[in-house]
């Protein structure tokens, strides 16, 4: 209690640390070490996260996103297998509503020749990102608490000391998807315009071919910025949302210690509720934006200027 400031910092830092499994400089693979102990009880950690460098996996991010994605495709597959045109059930109706929404978006934004990839791509992005974003609405201490064997997330006796339930608050998840979109953009640009046409678009616009160097300075950053921004936007929004939830959670710290602690806790509850309601909007909006922007960028990759 003496160092309440430190406690808060620890708490925030704890919530911002991924469960990481990676290759240490000495060549061994292990979970990361944080504050002198391994992230997972009973394992030896030989280095901390920053020492791992590139060869590290955020286990919680991958686990949550793959789990949600698996849930998504199994659910969708079940609906698709039993889909009937004459007697749709409630679940089929819901999924069909989603598919119709995505299809309309594809038809509105994607005016190029029909590309059979666009619908499934858009649907996957929308549903998957939506589900991942939705993890933000789970009380932030709940999953770490479960992961640590139903004890306080940092307690020594537990199992997994670090577990971030929100995959999109880890830069790797949204950027991994944005990377996929970036690859698709390059693939379709080159496929539809030819390598020459694609490069010409980046060098001969907007001022004609005699101003090529200036055009490149304008076009290349713009071209890549929008694709980076696709992932960064999602990351930024959800990370910020998560951060606010963490800060609000600090209100509950002194709930059992004093009357001001109780008052702060009540205020925290109200704030948490308000922010969660507002966040429902963000969750859907960001998923939708990611989908629509993907379609728009891929449409541009199909278009001849």
């Amino acid at each position, binding site marked *: 209690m003496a160092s309440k400031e430190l406690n808060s910092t620890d708490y925030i830092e704890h919530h911002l640390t991924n469960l990481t499994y990676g290759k240490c400089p000495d060549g061994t693979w292990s979970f990361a070490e944080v504050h002198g102990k391994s992230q997972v009880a009973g394992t030896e950690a030989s280095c901390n996260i920053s020492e791992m460098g590139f060869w590290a996996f955020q286990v919680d*991010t*991958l686990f949550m996103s793959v789990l949600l994605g698996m849930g998504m*495709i199994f659910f969708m597959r079940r609906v698709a297998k039993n889909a009937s*045109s004459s007697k749709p059930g409630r679940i089929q109706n819901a999924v069909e509503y989603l598919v119709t929404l995505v299809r309309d978006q594809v038809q509105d934004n994607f005016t190029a020749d029909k590309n059979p*990839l666009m619908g499934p791509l858009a649907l996957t992005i929308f549903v998957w990102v939506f589900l991942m974003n939705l993890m933000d609405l789970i009380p932030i201490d709940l999953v770490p608490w479960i992961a640590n064997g139903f004890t306080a997330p940092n307690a020594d006796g537990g199992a997994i000391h670090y577990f971030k339930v929100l995959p999109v608050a880890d830069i790797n998840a949204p950027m*991994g998807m944005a990377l996929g979109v970036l690859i698709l953009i390059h693939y379709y640009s080159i496929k539809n315009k030819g390598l020459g046409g694609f490069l010409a678009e980046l060098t001969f616009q907007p001022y004609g071919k005699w101003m090529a160097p200036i055009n490149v300075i304008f076009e290349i950053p713009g071209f890549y910025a929008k694709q980076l921004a696709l992932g960064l936007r999602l990351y930024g929004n959800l990370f910020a949302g998560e951060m606010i939830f963490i800060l609000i959670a600090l209100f509950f710290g002194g709930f059992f210690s004093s009357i001001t602690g109780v008052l702060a806790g009540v205020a925290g509850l109200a704030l948490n509720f308000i922010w969660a309601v507002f966040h429902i909007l963000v969750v859907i909006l960001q998923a939708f934006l990611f989908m629509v922007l993907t379609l728009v960028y891929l449409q541009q990759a199909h278009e001849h200027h």
Partner: protein
Amino acid sequence: MNFNATLFGQLLAFVFFVWFTMQYVWPYILEALEEREKEISDGLEAASRGKRELDEANQRKAEILEEAKKEAADLVNQANARASQLVEDAKATAHEEAERIKVSAQSDLEQAAKRTKEELRSEVAALAVAGAEKILGSEIDKDRNAQIIDQIAEEL
């Protein structure tokens, strides 16, 4: 915010999910959806066609009804005219018949009266002769007096 191999893990997962959706989810749902959309639009079209046909049938029905009503009215009028004609005819026939019966009855009556008169006359003549015989106390020679008797009978 540290980039690491998670990025590619995520990318792989992304590719897999998109592939799966494209292969096993999207086409099936879209097929059901489009089939239903077609069924609905067909149904709507059929419904509007049925409605149009119903309207036409209703119109035809009204026309036929109107025609039938007119025909029936004509028939009734004709029948009425015919009936009154028949009544008139029957009246005239009856009248004639009555006249004829009256006439024949009259002539029968006259004949009967005449015959009665004849009978009465001859009877009276016989009576008169008998009376005269009694008065005269002697037989009248019928042959001789036949002329007289006939004369008397004629006068009666």
